[in-house]
């Protein structure tokens, strides 16, 4: 049976950790607007073509109101990060969203991220030294991928990195769409909220040199700032967003580059390729997770198909990033590809706020690994790497390496 004669299960299962499911190419070609069944049993519309995904992500009619009564539930337990009620506290669109975005976005400029490079480099070097001291094989995911982004985002937010195990758990309950029951998720979110509220109250009393303190210093909504509740939710959002996304991508990036030794050799020979190589691994990440769901508030058309009001659309950026009509030799990894307008960070007004941070972290990790561990290799065949199941943002269970 071909893909357009059945309702596909989504996410589409894939055995290979680094390779895309065969259905993507078939969907792009035959069925760019596909019906899929989510883990909750609800149906949604899956988009896999580059032009469609890019257009929908930038179109304000496709909202993030996944809490609407007729929106599809992503999993039986709700929708984790995507349909959390907390998400409704940050303005979803229009001028109010733009205002929020600019208040917070000033902390994530390219210049600020460049200024963080030396401290990121130092953290990466320290973590790699520790991994090496532990002896080969090491797990690059646990030794480097996870701790680095957590230290960096904690430092930016002014949140104690010692509490990172708690953040990891709270973050996982939001990002894992299948692992936890509703009661456990609700309890974890209540704890997380309490924790962040306490932290914000503490900063109001004794400000530090960090993002949350500065957001408080702007003043309340009447002074052009945010309400206390918005600051708390912003802090929670940034902590979650700055956490597992890049952490997982570090492991996937290194695995993709080591899966074919020639790629690593090219980078050793010419470290100037680091920037474009990072972009190419973001584009080709076949294990990117769920994609981005959107809720359609009014009837509209995509690729000649009418979508009724109330449709829940899932944008697969990872499938779109392999669209032959947008990228030459789309299935091939080209470390020099330029320009590389991939959609890994989304597109339009809601594209990833922390993308300059993520890019800088990925570039720093790669630069330090190439310099310190030029002989780095995977300690298992790439085909034996395993995916973490159920995550809104995909990752690998472990990344065993030797050097």
């Amino acid at each position, binding site marked *: 049976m071909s893909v357009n004669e059945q309702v596909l299960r989504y996410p589409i299962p894939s055995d290979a950790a680094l390779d895309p499911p065969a259905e993507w190419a078939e969907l792009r070609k035959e069925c760019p607007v596909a019906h899929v069944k989510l883990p909750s049993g609800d149906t949604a519309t899956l988009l896999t073509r580059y032009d469609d995904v890019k257009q929908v992500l930038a179109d304000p009619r496709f909202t993030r109101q996944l809490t609407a009564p007729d929106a599809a539930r992503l999993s039986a337990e709700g929708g984790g990060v995507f349909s959390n009620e907390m998400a409704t506290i940050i303005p979803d669109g229009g001028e109010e969203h733009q205002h929020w975005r600019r208040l917070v*976005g*000033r902390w994530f*400029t390219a210049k600020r991220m460049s200024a963080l490079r030396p401290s990121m480099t130092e953290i990466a070097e320290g973590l790699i030294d520790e991994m090496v001291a532990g002896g080969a094989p090491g797990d690059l995911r646990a030794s480097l991928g996870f701790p680095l982004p957590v230290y960096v985002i904690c430092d930016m937010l002014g949140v104690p990195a010692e509490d990172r195990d708690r953040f990891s758990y709270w973050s996982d309950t939001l990002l894992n769409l299948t692992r936890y029951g509703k009661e456990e998720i609700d309890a974890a979110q209540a704890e997380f909220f309490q924790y962040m509220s306490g932290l914000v109250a503490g900063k109001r009393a004794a400000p530090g040199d960090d993002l949350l303190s500065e957001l408080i210093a702007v003043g309340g909504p009447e002074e052009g700032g945010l309400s206390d509740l918005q600051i708390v939710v912003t802090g929670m959002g940034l902590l979650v967003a700055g956490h597992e996304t890049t952490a997982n991508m570090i492991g996937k990036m290194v695995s993709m580059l080591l899966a074919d030794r020639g790629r690593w050799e090219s980078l050793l020979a010419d470290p100037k390729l680091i920037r474009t190589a990072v972009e190419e691994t973001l584009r080709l990440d076949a294990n990117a997770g769920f994609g981005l769901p959107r809720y359609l508030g009014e009837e509209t058309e995509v690729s000649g198909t009418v979508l009724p009001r109330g449709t829940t659309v899932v944008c697969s950026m990872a499938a779109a990033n392999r669209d032959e009509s947008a990228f030459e030799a789309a299935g091939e990894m080209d470390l020099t590809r330029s320009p590389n307008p991939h959609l890994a960070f989304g597109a*339009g007004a809601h594209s990833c706020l922390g993308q300059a941070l993520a890019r800088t972290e990925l570039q720093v990790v790669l630069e330090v690994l190439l310099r310190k561990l030029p002989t780095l290799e995977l300690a298992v065949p790439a085909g034996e790497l395993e995916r973490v199941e159920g995550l809104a943002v995909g990752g690998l269970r472990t990344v065993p390496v030797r050097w």
Partner: protein
Amino acid sequence: MKVIVDEDKCCGAGQCVLIAPEVFDQRDDDGIAVVLQAEPGADQHDAVREAAAVCPGAAIELG
């Protein structure tokens, strides 16, 4: 080559600054892109074209 940034479309991703730092910068107070060289020299044209092609907000217009 003339470079214009549409501030309303700019989402502050900073790609232009990472790719062509001599031509683009971001304002400190809101992260919105500003053009440092509205008519950049030929040596910058490739970088500027790349920045425009990958801008997530499609906010860079080249004339």
